[in-house]
């Protein structure tokens, strides 16, 4: 008589040879395949239930392996890092650690990997962050790391991925990893991304973020997908301890007369429409506006006007002049220039012969550019949004923001780029904004984020 046997099937668990009259715990009958089926998420709970009820079984589901991981490149952990690690393991190796950008979250994860000693999948929101995990883990353990995403499809015992690629492929690989790590976990509660932990067997789960709480309260879902919040420290608690001090300069510039003329013409026609329709920049009316622009000519014109207005703002000639003067002032420093739009990145790159990084930059070249920047071979980088979240440029001490959107999370994380501890270094952040336009408003909203208090 064959014993009940667990197997993995496209992100779910199937139990074969179950002959008891009762339903197996956490399983549901699937009339399509005529088998008992459960969510892969419940794997650990199912094993526990089997043990409690002394149900003998075979396990053909799990395909993750024991890994002997030794940290070759050992940094001393800061207090907050070892506390976070301790609390996480104390809570059954499940849950989220909240630490500000630049406080060394990835080191917590690397130590957790070494402690768990099992196949691990690291999921990050962007290709750049994924690539950065790739570098970090490879350096820490001196092993070959697999990549799933950004044109790569190579699964290894330790693999890095993006949310998009992991979502797409988790049903094929959900049994290959015993440990899941989610970087910037506030992205996870989306209906699609939350399927990554659902379709995975991994008993151990770690979430990392600087901004856990979402205005839509969706972070509450993380409790059952990942585990509770196990540790939290805010930027105020850590400032000075290991983050470098920083100062902020805001540079106000005006549009050129020509730009101003174009801008106000566009602005008039746009605002007339907006006033007439009572559009607000949130809620349903904005959606309605977008929808209307696909069938009413007035709305379409207003939408195009708005787009052109933004182009004038982000590309304003005087902004580029202001940038030029900063380039002169700081040409011996390590500088990162952030812009909103890709075409401006390439314009600056060509004009000032500064290496550009955008989402279009190939993985290999990206790594080469960042490595050269770290080594000091390159002193400047101009980039669009790619570096927004947590991508770490350890030696940058000057950052310039040219244009940007109003999200406080985004801004806080941009700031994080330059907040790296380096003895005797004071980081400077410049924000170049255009006066008398919508942008002043955006910058004001930014300031409300925690980092400025």
């Amino acid at each position: 008589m064959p014993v009940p046997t667990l197997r993995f099937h496209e992100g779910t668990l199937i139990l074969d040879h179950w002959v008891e009259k009762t339903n197996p715990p956490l399983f549901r009958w699937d009339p399509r395949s005529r088998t008992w089926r459960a969510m892969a998420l419940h794997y650990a709970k199912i094993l526990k239930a089997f043990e409690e009820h002394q149900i003998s079984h075979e396990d053909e589901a799990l395909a993750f392996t024991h890994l002997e991981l030794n940290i070759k490149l050992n940094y001393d952990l800061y207090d907050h890092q070892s506390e976070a690690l301790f609390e996480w393991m104390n809570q059954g190796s499940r849950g989220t650690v909240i630490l500000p950008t630049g406080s060394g979250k990835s080191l917590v994860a690397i130590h957790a990997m070494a402690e768990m000693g099992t196949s691990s999948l690291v999921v990050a929101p962007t290709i750049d962050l994924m690539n950065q995990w790739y570098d970090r883990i490879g350096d820490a353990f001196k092993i070959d790391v697999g990549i799933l995403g950004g044109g790569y499809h190579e699964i290894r015992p330790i693999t890095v991925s993006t949310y998009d690629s992991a979502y797409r492929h988790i049903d094929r690989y959900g049994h290959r990893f015993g440990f899941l790590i989610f970087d910037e976990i506030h992205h996870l509660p989306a209906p699609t991304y939350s399927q990554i932990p659902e379709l995975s067997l991994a008993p151990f789960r770690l979430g990392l973020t600087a901004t856990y709480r979402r205005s839509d309260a969706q972070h509450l879902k993380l409790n059952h997908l990942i585990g509770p919040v196990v540790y939290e420290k805010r930027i105020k608690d850590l400032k000075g301890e290991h983050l470098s001090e920083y100062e902020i300069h805001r540079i106000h510039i005006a549009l050129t007369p020509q730009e101003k003329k174009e801008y106000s013409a566009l602005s008039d026609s746009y605002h007339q429409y907006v006033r007439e329709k009572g559009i607000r920049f949130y809620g349903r009316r904005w959606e309605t506006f977008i929808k209307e622009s696909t069938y009413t000519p007035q709305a379409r014109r207003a939408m195009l006007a708005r787009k052109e207005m933004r182009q004038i703002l982000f590309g304003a000639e005087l902004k580029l002049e202001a940038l030029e003067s900063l380039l002169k002032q700081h040409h011996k420093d390590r500088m990162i220039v952030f812009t909103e739009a890709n075409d401006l990145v390439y314009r600056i790159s060509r004009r000032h012969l500064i290496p550009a990084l955008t989402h279009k930059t190939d993985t290999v070249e990206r790594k080469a550019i960042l490595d050269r920047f770290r080594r000091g071979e390159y002193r400047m980088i101009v980039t669009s949004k790619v570096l927004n979240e947590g991508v770490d440029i350890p030696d940058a001490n000057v950052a310039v923001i040219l244009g940007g959107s109003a999200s406080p999370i985004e801004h806080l994380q941009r700031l994080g780029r330059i907040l790296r501890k380096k003895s005797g270094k004071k980081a400077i952040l410049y924000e170049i904004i255009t006066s008398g336009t919508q942008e002043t408003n955006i910058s004001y909203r930014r300031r409300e984020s925690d980092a400025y208090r």
Partner: protein
Amino acid sequence: MLTADLIRSRTVGDNISPRYITRRYSANYLDDCLKLIGTFEKHIGKTQEELMSALENLEGKRTDFKIFRGLAKLLSEDGEFSPARQINYPALRHSIFSRAQNHYPIVSKSDLLHQNQRDQILSEAAQEFEVPVKVIDGLLYGDLPENQILTSFKTTHTPETLLKRYNLAQAQGLLYRAIRLRILLKEDYRIVFQYIKLSGLMHWITPLPSNGMEIILDGPSSLFRNTQRYGIRMANFLPGLLLAKTWEMRADIQTPQGPKFFYLDPKCGLTSHYSPGKRFDSQIEEKFFIKFTRKEREWTIEREGEVIDLGDSVFIPDFTFRHPDGRSASLEIVGFWTPEYLNKKIGKIKRSKRKNLVLAVNKQLNCSRDDFQGEIMFYRTGLKIGECLEKLEKVAC
């Protein structure tokens, strides 16, 4: 297929449907199609950016820009892009940027302190990479998609077929958001199940009291939650369904306004670009069918007229025979000889647990009676009708 942002749908009550280019308006768009094809052809040898801005100009301020971009997107699948010169672009950039390090700041306006060194750096790099100084500026990012050249554009589309493909792509695009498909099917089981299998969807079959069956399609994790994860598989499957003659489909679509239904049947006028396959697998089958139907018989014959559900797959015998008294029996011809095929077939036959099944096995296969279960006849060049009828009578129920 189209990207999700180019999909247009209309919701009325509980129903959602694609916004097709209907016959009434197709005349307007035929002209656009011609212009689009012309624009692509004119831009062979030009950069993608030039092509895009030409398309943008053509688009103008029209409000139906989504349709226009959709048509362009489908055409762009027939184009090939590559960089203007075959050089190592990352190396070129590195050469320029590392030279620039010693001359920072590179300024656009020279003054007493800062001389513009840009031209000198570029001309040094041009020399190193053996390209004219004139083009080096433009080559710096020559490998970026927008700077690549449209090297070839070979489309098989006419304006008419492009509109047809557009409408199909709209229906497929609506399915990206589908969580489940329900299909009523009366014939053409094999081709439909072939594309179900290819798409990787799971089926749930209920025979209908009259004739035919209801098929519900979704994926493994659909048992636990409504998910759009399998929507792309459903979109891939749709052209397979269109190959059948009689069918009805209902897709359950998830929208921010709640669940909606998308109904489709052959009256939709959509056309498939998938291969309908051959009507018969082999000459043996074809000859047998012709011979059997040449004469009026008590038993009626139906080609692939029955689906035996095996859970994770289906078994569709080659022929099903029905008697006026209500009895029926099936015939499966085993003619191929690769071991995998044979094993799979034997496994399926065993799992089907059919009593009223006759197997016709090619004598050259070197199989013995013991390899199979149930009623067997061997054949060499063709099936004998008499022997077949005899076996049918024996097993039918």
